[in-house]
């Protein structure tokens, strides 16, 4: 009997899944077109991007002018980056004398060279680095930026641009954190007078807008000082901003302190630890870890708040750009100036937030349920 029947001996190879359920199409169906509302959102977003991105690229890149010495030289109709190019040094150093600018470079390079290894794990000798950064560097930086000991004195009135912004931000950040911790501890202290003072301080500074405080420091204060006392304007600003930031920092840190279970305090006391040891060894390391996002948030807000000094006539990064665009040669380039400023601020703030995420992951030693 001839067997005409056909019996397949091997199984059919798997068909590829239907095209609608694989790869990019599946992803798009799931994420972009899963419902009529999502489809609508996707299409309108695409349309918006189409309307915004190509013209922006055209303006910012393809038909932009890079060279020229006045706005009139920018003829192609796009962005006039020539302004940023010509004024770049001014935006970085303000009115710092050209021959002395190496001092600013060295000052900030030194900071980066010592502060960045501090943030990287597994680098030996961190203790000494930290001592240098927090105890010795401020004096070195002051010497470099301001002068003295053989270096030409550069009046703080000549500071400006990104340099001034960074000085303001760094000093306020470095001063406000320890101050803020002290105020937070003071606010939870059992000694009534200290507690009162700390509450008063925090609530006073938090209750007033930064602009008001800056005006107070720059406009009212000089009127009440004896004539002839020339209290440096930048120093006044630094003090005012540091105290302001410390008040906010204190509340952030207090949030962390309150999150620590009472058992931790009691355990520390049972071990016979003094108040400062309890705080330094047990409570603060845990509390600060919890509030890292809050602290970095305050830092970022602070960094951006430095632009408010433009209301008291300090030419920081943003306001020196504004000044530059009012010069008769560059009238009409304010958009370019603002785009450049936004890009630079974004780079700084984004780096800070990335570092904070890394720090959180590194210190995340459990306690999450």
């Amino acid at each position, binding site marked *: 009997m001839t067997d005409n029947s056909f019996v397949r001996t091997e199984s059919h190879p798997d068909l590829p899944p239907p095209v609608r359920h694989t790869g990019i199409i599946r992803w798009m169906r799931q994420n972009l077109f899963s419902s009529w509302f999502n489809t609508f959102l996707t299409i309108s977003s695409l349309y918006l991007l189409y309307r915004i991105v190509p013209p922006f690229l055209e303006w910012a890149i393809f038909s932009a002018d890079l060279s020229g010495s006045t*706005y009139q030289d920018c003829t192609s109709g796009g962005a006039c980056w020539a302004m940023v190019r010509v004024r770049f040094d001014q935006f970085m150093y303000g009115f710092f004398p050209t021959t002395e600018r190496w001092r600013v470079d060295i000052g900030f390079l030194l900071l980066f060279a010592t502060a960045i290894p501090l943030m990287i794990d597994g680098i030996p000798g961190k203790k000494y680095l930290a001592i240098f950064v927090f105890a010795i560097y401020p004096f070195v930086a002051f010497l470099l930026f301001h002068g003295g000991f053989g270096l030409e004195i550069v009046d703080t009135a000549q500071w400006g641009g990104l340099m001034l912004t960074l000085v303001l931000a760094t000093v306020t950040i470095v001063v406000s954190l320890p101050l803020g911790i002290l105020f937070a501890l003071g606010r939870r202290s059992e000694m009534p007078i200290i507690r009162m003072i700390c509450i008063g301080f925090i609530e006073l500074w938090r209750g007033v807008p930064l602009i008001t405080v800056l005006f107070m420091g720059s*406009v009212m204060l*000089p*009127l009440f000082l004896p004539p002839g006392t020339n209290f440096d304007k930048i120093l006044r600003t630094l003090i005012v901003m540091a105290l302001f930031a410390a008040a906010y920092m204190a509340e952030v840190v207090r949030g962390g302190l309150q999150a620590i279970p009472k058992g931790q305090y009691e355990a520390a006391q049972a071990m016979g630890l003094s108040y400062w040891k309890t705080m330094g060894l047990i409570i603060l390391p845990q509390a600060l870890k919890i509030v890292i996002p809050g602290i970095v948030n305050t830092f970022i807000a602070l960094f951006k708040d430095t632009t408010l000094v433009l209301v008291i006539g300090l030419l920081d990064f943003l306001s020196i750009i504004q*000044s530059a665009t*009012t010069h008769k040669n560059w009238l009409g380039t*304010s958009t370019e100036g603002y785009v450049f400023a936004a890009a630079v601020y974004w780079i700084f703030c984004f780096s800070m937030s990335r570092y904070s995420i890394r720090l959180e992951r590194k210190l995340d030693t459990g306690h999450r349920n």
Partner: protein
Amino acid sequence: MKSILFATAAATIAFVGSAQAGLLEDVKAKGFIQCGVNTGLTGFSAPNDKGKWEGFDVDFCRAMSAAVFGDADKVKYTPLTSKERFTALQSGEIDVLSRNTTWTFTRDVNLGLEFIGSNYYDGQGFMVRKDLGVKSARELDGASVCIQTGTTTELNLADYFRTHKMEFNSVVFEKADEIRAAYDAGRCDVYTTDRSGLAAQRSLLKAPEDHLVLPEVVSKEPLGPVVRHGQSEWGDVARWTLYTLIVAEELGITSANVDSMKSSKNPEVLRLLGIEGEMGKQLGVSADWAYNIVKQVGNYSEVYERHVGVNTPLKLERGINALWTQGGLMYAPPFR
């Protein structure tokens, strides 16, 4: 509370005034003039590409420096916002304020300031598109007007329209750039601000020649340098520096011909340039003080044309800022 604050401030100012009677001597001793300028106003004060301040207001400080030190560059600039300018002067942080400041009664009398004259007569004006066919601000009934928020501009505008029984719709913006963009896009018919500002903004429009600044000036804005009350000698130096600029133009002395003018036959020129008489000594400065001003900074016309005149992006005609001999308001008392 407010009045206590002001009383204290005023007492402090009086104290400052009495403690520094000889500001001219103090300035000579410290070797430079601390001059308050605008943080950035086109043509009047702005840092150039090399970081040096330049502009119409800046040149007044340079002229004073030329008069006092014989060198126009002995000036340190303090960029000031409009809110802190008077305090900076009252507290002695600056020696002279040259920052497009309008001379008003209250400021002159009540704030303890002394306006030494006016070096630029500004006033609020209107700009419209030519194709509107409007030739006078009186025809603007019902127009939509672009203005900057919170300025005297807003009040002047309301006053002007109310006086002439006209209606307007205000379209309010925060910054000059925004107003310009809105006006250029046709969101309003009229753009109003000080005429010097209108000129600057007009040069940035897509087609500047399609726009017209109407002849009406609806407010008086005499801008001038300011010193503290009670600094008479210093105020004299400032006042006669300003008049030197004006009179040099009147007498035809420019930075180019000032050397040959030294052998002029005109006795007033000789007195001014310090060849005859002893005006410099009476003023407390060197004999060639006016020569230095004109040589290093120029006369009023040179300063004007260099920073705001028709060959600059502002393209401002002299208008009422012309000499009195040419139908303007620039007038200097005689040098004798």
